[in-house]
């Protein structure tokens, strides 16, 4: 075929032509370019910029920015009286809201996985709250938590239990927000539900033949096979709980007496109320490092308790 080509054509054929692999790479890159550009513009650059600004006294409002070295970090760890308060509050919130959230969502998913009449309706009902905007949900919960007329205290009174000052007592404000966080469990419940439907039926049958009780089937079959889903929800729960903000911002403003001053709220105050973006950036970097470390630890330990087969 080449022998029949004109001279010019032969010269062209002799030049190295771009391989199909090269083209495929470029076309592939062109397709991912929108995401990549958005990632660089809205994630990578802000992350590096935040890291850089954490070493400055940048205020965003235009006053001259100075390089202050580690001063912002020193201030956070040694001089800011509310930093440790915010850290403690956030750890308390994570320590309770994440495990309680996992257990509750998993339990509800187990119930909704049973073949009973109206399952679809129940699933919708349990999922609905997670699509309600936080602001609206927060206002509803403000009424629920009211000391004198709130539904929760009405239930406690009905059960002859002492009433609780949910939002005015520093000891109860955090538990109140933890209870409220369960309101949005619908999304993780749906994930559990999907996971439960992927558990092979023959394993249950085999366990039943071996005489396993319902509890034994749950512990020996369901839970082990659900560990990848639990692991995913644990990771997402941890990351979200570290960034808890809206409920405290709208409902309590960090009170009473700083009981709900969470880390993100503290960061927000410095950034947008005091215009101390440099210091806020340092707080964000600390949070980033902590979340990254914790995620890595959980990831590392997952070999011991997550079953993928």
């Amino acid at each position, binding site marked *: 075929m080449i022998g029949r080509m004109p001279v010019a054509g032969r010269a062209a054929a002799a030049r190295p032509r771009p391989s199909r692999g090269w083209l495929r790479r470029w076309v592939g890159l062109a397709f991912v370019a929108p995401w990549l550009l958005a990632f660089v513009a809205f994630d990578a650059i802000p992350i590096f910029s935040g890291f850089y600004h954490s070493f400055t006294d940048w205020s*965003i409002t*235009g006053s001259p920015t100075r390089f202050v070295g580690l001063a912002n970090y020193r201030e956070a760890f040694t001089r800011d009286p509310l930093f440790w308060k915010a850290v403690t509050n956030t750890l308390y919130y994570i320590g309770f809201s994440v495990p309680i959230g996992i257990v509750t969502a998993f339990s509800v998913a187990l119930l909704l996985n049973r073949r009973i009449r109206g399952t679809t309706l129940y699933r919708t009902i349990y999922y609905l709250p997670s699509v309600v905007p936080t602001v609206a949900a927060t206002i509803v919960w403000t009424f629920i938590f009211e000391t*004198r007329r709130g539904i929760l205290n009405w239930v406690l009174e009905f059960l002859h239990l002492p009433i609780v000052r949910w*939002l005015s007592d520093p000891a109860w404000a955090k538990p109140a927000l933890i209870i409220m966080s369960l309101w949005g469990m619908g999304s993780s419940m749906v994930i559990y539900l999907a996971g439960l439907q992927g558990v092979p039926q023959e394993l249950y049958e085999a366990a039943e033949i071996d005489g396993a009780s319902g509890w034994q089937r749950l512990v020996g079959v369901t839970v082990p096979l659900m560990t990848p889903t639990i692991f995913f929800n644990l990771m997402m729960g941890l990351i979200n709980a570290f960034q808890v903000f809206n409920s405290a911002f709208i409902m309590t403003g960090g009170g009473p*007496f700083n009981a709900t001053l969470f880390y993100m709220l503290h960061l927000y105050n410095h950034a947008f109320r*005091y215009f101390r973006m440099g210091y806020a950036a340092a707080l964000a970097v600390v949070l980033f490092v902590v979340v990254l470390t914790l995620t890595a630890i959980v990831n590392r330990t997952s070999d011991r308790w997550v079953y993928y087969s």
Partner: protein
Amino acid sequence: MSSTVAEPGRVSRRRLLKLASMGVMCSLVACAAPSVTPVPTKGPTQPSQAQEAPSATPVSATPAPKEAITIRFWNVWGAAREELMNQIIARFEEQNPGIKVQNLVQPFERREENLLTALASSDPPEVLMATRAELLKFADDGLIVPVTEYVKAYNLDLGRFYDSEIGNMWWKGELYSMPMPTGGGITCLTLINQDMFNAAGKTPVIPKTWSELWEVAKEFTELDPKGIVKIGATVGTGASDFLAWLYCNNGSVYSEDLRQVTFASEEGIQTLDWMVRFTNEINGGVQNVTDFFAGPGEATEAQPWYNDKQLINFPNVSIFFHMKTYKPDMKWDMGPRPFNGANPNAKSQGLAGEAFAWSYVIPKVLKPEVRDAAFKWVRKITYDEDGGCWFMQQQGRPSPLKACNEAQLYYDANVHWDKVLEALKTDVSVQIMPEHARVRDILNQGVQSAMFGEKTPAQALQDAAREAQAVVDEYWSKRS
């Protein structure tokens, strides 16, 4: 057969990439377009006769734009006020055919965040509603333009404003806005519910001193195991309440040169000690007070004041609008805020400009002709009778313009209007600094720690003062 030539009717890969690149380029060019989009107008480009012509030359000396300028007006005048503002805009646009105003009401809960990021951007709204503390910060950092020259150019008479009100808008010898509504009228009022006095068979009393307030509040407050059933009065539990009472005890928040915090003075400690005792002994503690007023804010009819469950109230002037809405038949009376009768130097005083004191700022990055248009709008909503004055009158709340408050319609709508004006006269313009928000939050920590019994009032204020002083020193060290 592979070919680089596109089949007829099909687009080649190269051509596709070329088109995509052109699309991206066009998008980028569109993004980089000027911030103010000119809007073609149907009317004339010169100001109409209805608009009062400025008596001096325009400040920017730029020719009048041929196309309309759009003023994006960020504000928090939501709910019923939005429609009132739209009416002012309609009048303004009629008077200024070359200018269009977009009324952009912002959600209050994210106001600070939005304001700051917008102002720091290269394309901020042309006029933004900001508190006095924010105005000082932005002015100090050179983000907004002073309007002193505009005021001179248009021969505006600043004497039309109350001194305490226009005084709040200055920073380092330059005027940065004009006020609307009053920055005062926030803490100077004491309202009593006469219906509650009458129901109890008592003669209505407007307490003038702290001890009178104590006696009346104690007599009327009812507690049960769940907390407060009816409240005589609350003296508040946070920094803003503390400052209001501090000024009625001859105290202050800063020294005159703004270099020292002074709230931990003898008067300050006395004030906080009285507040803590009042809250504990009469209202049964800070938690009772928080629970009693829990809910979605003072502007709702569920609040105790509108339900004969609160005898004495220390509201701001917006209460008249809400009372007209929620309980128009309520019998009430009013006087100035009680002062510490045990301190011979103390008197009733209201705070003007310590909190809120709304202003309307113009970003520095605007083009001169847009700045001119922005100032015209600022003038309309602050200085003009058919603008800011009318807006306040419709809400029954006082204007920072003295003459505006003399309108008969105020007296018709509010039987105690003369007392409102008397109370407003007790307002003092509180000197604050650009770091005031931070100082205020530190003070709030101190007040709360005393209220929750973690520290004594003296210890709480001294600790807060030490911390706040460090903030003040840091600010001045950067400016030296």
